[in-house]
């Protein structure tokens, strides 16, 4: 990069008379050859010019030349009556070069001492696309499309044509086009001009699997057809639409097919014209959309998130069960569930089910027991009650006895505690008391 930078002309610079801002010497003849890179014009702007004024800048002068042709000759001071001062207006070279020549005579009149000049130059991009053909000036630089770039330009061609080796003109060529962008525009060669004869153009729209292509023909549609009793017959000119696993469809006539869903991620279009007849051509804009998956059915005791009106390729769904229920799939409990809409329009996992949880058998209470109050099979929200084997054991004062099967699958009392109560022995209370009535 260092060598290249040194070898290329600078994009800008400053040029000044000798000893500026001191007065320039007498009997001087000095030349500056300024240049900027190819593809740019050189623009010169004077920030100061003070050269001894004279008619036609006879004594002292600064001459501006391009290719030995004098563009301007300056002397004098700004607003001075004599001489020719450039003012504030910049000078634009026809090309990327410019030559300045400062010539002074042997004397400088007293008492004023003239300071010379100071100017800066810079490269200015040329819009080659707006310039006429440099060869004969008869036509545009590019025969079809022109793209201006900094310091240069580039020609390109519409679909159906390719650039000739001269990098300027286009030749008809409509084969091998593959369109893999999510959307785009296709048209017959030369559209909206009539299609050339002898065409065999192939267009392949092929996007990522998981997306489907929709063709949308513009209203301006005309492909030569032969009228028959059964409608138009695409005998000599046709546009054939081929979709995998379907019969190819030939289009012709003057009526636009309009919107044509393909339900495929790849479509081939073959445009054929023979050596006679007239087809005005066609144009279409294609778009793509993601493959749609069936909306998941509702989950009993659970819900599917997110809830979209439709689900498309790469959309994810999750299933969450209501509190007290667990995710089950293929007879086994799963911790979580997520399924993605695949490129074939199928969910990668079938939907799970939400089954009610159970807390299992309640812990046995030493010297006590447990009674089921409500619910069944230890399921969520079932209620049990602990009791002690009375009268020999009793619950500690304040102990709770009712437990409910909670969503975390533990039996919990009304204080949300999973600890079961304890049975404390009853002391000093025989079941049979000594009795005596004799006095």
């Amino acid at each position, binding site marked *: 990069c260092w060598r290249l930078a040194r070898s290329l002309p600078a994009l800008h610079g400053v040029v000044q008379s000798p000893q500026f801002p001191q007065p320039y010497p007498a009997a001087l003849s000095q030349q500056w050859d300024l240049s900027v890179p190819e593809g740019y014009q050189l623009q010169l702007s004077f920030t100061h010019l003070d050269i001894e004024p004279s008619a036609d800048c006879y004594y002292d002068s600064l001459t501006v030349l391009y290719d030995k042709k004098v563009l301007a000759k300056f002397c004098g001071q700004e607003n001075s009556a004599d001489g020719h001062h450039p003012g504030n207006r910049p000078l634009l070279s026809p090309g990327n070069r410019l030559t300045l020549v400062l010539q002074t005579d042997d004397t400088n009149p007293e008492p004023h001492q003239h300071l010379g000049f100071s100017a800066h130059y810079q490269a200015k991009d040329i819009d080659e696309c707006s310039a006429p053909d440099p060869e004969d000036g008869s036509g545009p630089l590019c025969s079809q499309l022109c793209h201006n770039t900094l310091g240069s330009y580039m020609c390109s061609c519409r679909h159906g044509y390719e650039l000739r080796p001269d990098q300027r003109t286009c030749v008809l060529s409509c084969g091998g086009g593959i369109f893999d962008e999510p959307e785009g525009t296709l048209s017959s060669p030369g559209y909206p001009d009539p299609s050339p004869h002898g065409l065999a153009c192939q267009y392949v729209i092929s996007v990522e699997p998981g997306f489907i292509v929709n063709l949308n023909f513009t209203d301006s549609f005309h492909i030569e057809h032969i009228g028959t009793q059964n409608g138009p017959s695409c005998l000599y000119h046709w546009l054939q639409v081929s979709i995998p696993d379907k019969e190819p469809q030939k289009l012709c006539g003057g009526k636009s097919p309009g919107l044509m869903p393909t339900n495929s991620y790849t479509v081939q279009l073959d445009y054929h014209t023979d050596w006679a007849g007239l087809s005005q051509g066609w144009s279409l804009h294609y778009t793509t959309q993601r493959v749609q998956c069936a909306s998941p059915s509702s989950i009993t005791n659970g819900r599917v998130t997110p809830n979209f009106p439709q689900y498309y390729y790469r959309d994810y769904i999750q299933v969450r069960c209501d509190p007290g229920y667990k995710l089950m799939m293929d007879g086994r409990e799963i911790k979580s569930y997520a399924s993605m809409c695949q490129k074939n329009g199928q969910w990668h996992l079938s939907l799970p089910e939400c089954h009610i949880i159970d807390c299992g058998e309640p812990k046995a209470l030493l*010297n006590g027991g447990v009674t089921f109050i409500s619910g069944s099979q230890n399921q969520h929200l079932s209620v049990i009650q602990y009791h002690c*084997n009375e009268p*020999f*054991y009793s619950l500690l004062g304040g102990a709770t006895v009712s437990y409910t099967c909670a969503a975390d699958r533990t039996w919990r009392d009304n204080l949300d505690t999973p600890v079961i109560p304890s049975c404390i*022995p*009853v*002391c*000093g*209370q*025989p*079941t*049979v*008391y*000594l009795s005596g009535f004799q006095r």
Partner: protein
Amino acid sequence: IMGGEKAPDKTIPWQVMLSVDGGRAGAMVIGDRWIMTAAHNLVQKGKLVLKEKLRVFMGDNDAEKLAKLTPLGVASLHPHPEYKNPDNANYNHDIALIKLQQPLTFHAAIMPLCLPPEDTIYKTGQIGMVSGFGIKEDDIIANKLRYIRLPVVDGNKCQASVNSAKAAMPTETIPVLTDNMFCAGVPEGGQDSCTGDSGGAYVLMEDSTKRFWAAGIVSWGVGCGQTGRYGVYTRVAKYISWINKTMEDN
């Protein structure tokens, strides 16, 4: 038990029968792993008996039936550390705990006794009840559990009774009466606990709850059922801290 009666089934469910190296003694249930008795049942001639030689029975009022049962396994013996009675003359701190290997399941025939709050005052004249399989009035060992109701005796009267015994039997070494003991009985004699009852419970009933609590442990006496003599019992309320600590530490 002298002058008492047979206890109907399930009326004294805390009663435990001990067999220590062939001798019979009493004890009481105080927890599902703990039995309380007199230290002198477990410490003989200054030595702690082997726990393997101690057999623990409970759940029936018939000693012959009890003896046919499989004894409960003993995990450890815990006589009070200050019990020192080499000459059978000092029954101070006559209290011991027995830890069972397996917890008991309580039912109508086996229930624990309550323990009193520490330093509970025993009211003189309050009627308590003592039970056991020991000697009855005809000097015959009782094979059916017997019980008798006896009042708590005033401490001074009891001390006077011991003093009179000392005077009457100058050649005998009468044990000393301490604050860790209390007396129960009647001055006219004939009603008392006796040999074989030691370690059993002297219980009082708490009026408000009608619950029996362990007030005393049958400890010693001068003869049995003699006129002017009383039975001497270990004062359980003095040992609540030791009981709790022993159970917690073990």
